[in-house]
């Protein structure tokens, strides 16, 4: 039952806000819908932890297991905190004259529909519907990226639409091929694309077709994960859209796209019995990590820099999942969580900093610690966390990934360590003067909404020091589902 609430709440929120999203209290309504979604997600999670995987509806239209319920919980949580952050943030944007009522209505409505699309992608059992909802998530955010209507934001949104559109068309072809293989075993009709059905017969699926299908699926969904060399849309879309949108794109959408890749990988591994899928993912992942690390060095725009950092971290997660095995999959899942929480926290802090400075250029943002200590510390701690400094949780997951790589693929470790080192030096070198530099700017006139930042960072810190046993079991179950 919870599943219908989970999908119905944000969807009705989207419709409601499309009609009344220009009201004065629309931001609060947006947060309320997000809170209700979070409650539904929590109820669903509780049920899965208690009863194990389940299918819901008809012939099993929805399928929930520890792997996707963990992402459902994460998505609903970050969506809620982002809606809290966006409440004052978007109001100030309106006061600055960058937005009007009509655009705020579009923003609130699209936000809810975007969340609904992601949750549908996570919970559906049908590989075809997974594709449909991924595309819906893109469409819901295209107009959000261009919300400011500046030339740069329009260009970013166009790039986002076209590149992701082409990418996702590849994924559709992959899905067609998957259906083609499945139909031979399961017979034609609606059930042949159900993941649970496919999973049962995965060893009988035609290997050559599945091999080709996986290449298309990886390239297609990989475009949305932001894997190099298909990452071109990502920095633009993150930098030019409003900051709450950057936070959910980076913290959530990338995860959901990677989830789609992983679901396909499990099937392909079963059919092929080789490491082909894993090797491809490791290759793409490693390339993304290295390329992003060196591109970070050249950035001048703070949101762009952290967008490249997202590519780096998603590359790392893809690499970990590519290695496979219990420890690497566990580390990948942990890193996914840490990255979502930390990166969205950073975007919240960066959002306030850029809003105050009126620019996203790092050279023009100085001395945040003096103008507003909360923002300054939020940004600094977030940066330290994402760079993998202990005791934050990112350290734990990166450590696990690298030690596993040393064991199983020693050739990759120098690249990983080099890339992480370069990223560390560049990001820290750029953020440090932003926070501690000299400034003559006056203090911030209003109180920033930074509770979400410290909640996120607190969680990351806690998970770095101590992972509660039930959470660890949960992660292990999810990792096992990925073929650990």
């Amino acid at each position, binding site marked *: 039952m919870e599943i219908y609430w989970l999908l119905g709440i944000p969807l009705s929120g989207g419709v409601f806000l499309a009609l009344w999203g220009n009201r004065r209290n629309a931001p609060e309504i947006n947060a309320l819908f997000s809170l209700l979604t979070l409650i539904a997600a929590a109820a669903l999670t509780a049920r899965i932890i208690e009863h194990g995987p389940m299918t819901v509806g008809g012939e099993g239209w929805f399928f929930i297991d520890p792997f996707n319920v963990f992402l459902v919980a994460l998505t609903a949580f970050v969506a809620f905190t982002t809606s809290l952050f966006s409440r004052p943030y978007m109001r100030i944007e309106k006061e600055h004259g960058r937005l009007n009522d009509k655009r705020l209505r579009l923003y609130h409505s699209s936000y809810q529909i975007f969340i609904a699309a992601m949750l549908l992608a996570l919970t559906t059992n049908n590989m*075809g*519907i997974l594709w449909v909802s991924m595309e819906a998530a893109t469409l819901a955010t295209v107009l959000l990226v261009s919300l400011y209507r500046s030339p740069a934001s329009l260009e970013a949104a166009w790039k986002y639409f076209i590149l992701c559109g082409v990418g996702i068309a590849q994924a559709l072809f992959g899905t*067609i091929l998957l259906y083609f293989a499945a139909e031979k075993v399961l017979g034609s009709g609606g059930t042949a694309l159900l993941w649970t059905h496919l999973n049962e017969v995965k060893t009988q699926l035609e290997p050559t077709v599945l091999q080709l299908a996986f290449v298309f699926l990886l390239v297609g969904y990989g475009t949305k994960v932001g894997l190099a060399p298909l990452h071109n849309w990502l920095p633009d879309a993150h930098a030019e859209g409003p900051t709450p949108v950057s936070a959910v794109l980076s913290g959530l959408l990338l995860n959901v796209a990677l989830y789609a890749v992983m679901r396909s990988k499990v099937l392909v591994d079963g059919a092929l019995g080789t490491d082909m899928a894993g090797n491809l993912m490791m290759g793409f992942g490693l390339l993304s990590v290295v390329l992003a690390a060196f591109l970070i060095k050249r950035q001048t725009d703070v949101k762009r820099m952290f967008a490249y950092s997202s590519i780096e971290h998603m590359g790392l997660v893809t690499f970990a999942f590519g290695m496979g095995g219990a420890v690497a999959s566990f580390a990948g899942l942990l890193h996914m969580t840490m990255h979502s929480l930390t990166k969205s926290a950073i975007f919240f802090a960066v959002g306030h900093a850029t809003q105050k400075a009126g620019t996203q250029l790092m050279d023009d943002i100085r001395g945040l610690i003096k103008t507003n200590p909360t923002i300054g510390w939020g940004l600094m701690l977030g940066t330290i966390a994402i760079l993998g400094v202990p005791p934050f949780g990112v350290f734990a997951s990166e450590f696990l990934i690298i030690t596993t790589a040393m064991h199983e693929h020693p050739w990759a470790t120098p690249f990983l360590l080099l890339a992480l080192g370069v990223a560390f030096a560049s990001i820290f070198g750029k953020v440090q003067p932003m926070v501690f530099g000299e400034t003559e700017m006056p203090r911030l006139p209003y109180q920033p909404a930074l509770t979400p930042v410290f909640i996120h960072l607190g969680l990351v810190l806690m998970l770095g020091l101590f992972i509660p046993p039930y959470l660890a079991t949960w992660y292990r179950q999810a990792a096992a589902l990925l073929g650990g």
Partner: protein
Amino acid sequence: MALSYPLQVVNLLAALLLLISFAMLSQRRIAGLVTLFAVQGAALSLSTAIVAWSTGQHHLYYSAALTLGLKVFAMPYYFFRLIRKLDVDRDVEPMITIPTTMLIGIVLVIFAFNLAMPISQMSGTVTRSTLGIAMASVLLAFLMMITRSKAIPQVIGFLAMENGLFFAATSATYGMPMVVEMGVALDVLVGVFVLGIFFFQIRETFDSLDLKHMEKLKER
């Protein structure tokens, strides 16, 4: 093996589809492109209907009707209205000359046929021989997206690509499950409307729909 009469018609329509893909590559005017897109949709819809009739796959009738409604009437109508409102029907100059594009196109077709060969041999459908054509038209549409710098031709390229994928699904597996096909159609429809809004935004900001203005965001 002699092909039955309806299948010969399907093969003929498949050939027509490929021909239209090439015609799109060589078309300079936006209105001409929209017309070609509508004709392509009609060929697709007709061939789907014939496959449905000759194989008794009834759900394909719905797909055929969906294609007819959306891609032959609704979308071209919407595009013509956009063209009139935005007043953009001038010659579109591709970034690579048309003869060169055609030559690349031929190479792509050969590549597509080679790629499709192992799959179509495994397929049990009577229409499997057209899978190569479907893949070729996907690649040709992709080529068109790359070589055009204006917004509307790029989107038509995107939709033509979707046509090719749809044709691939029909010829390899008699179409995707109905719920998926409905979902894809919904996405395409919403996408076209989002883009319609988007065109106006681009036009308002840049005074043109030429994407050459949009080359600011690059790594330096």
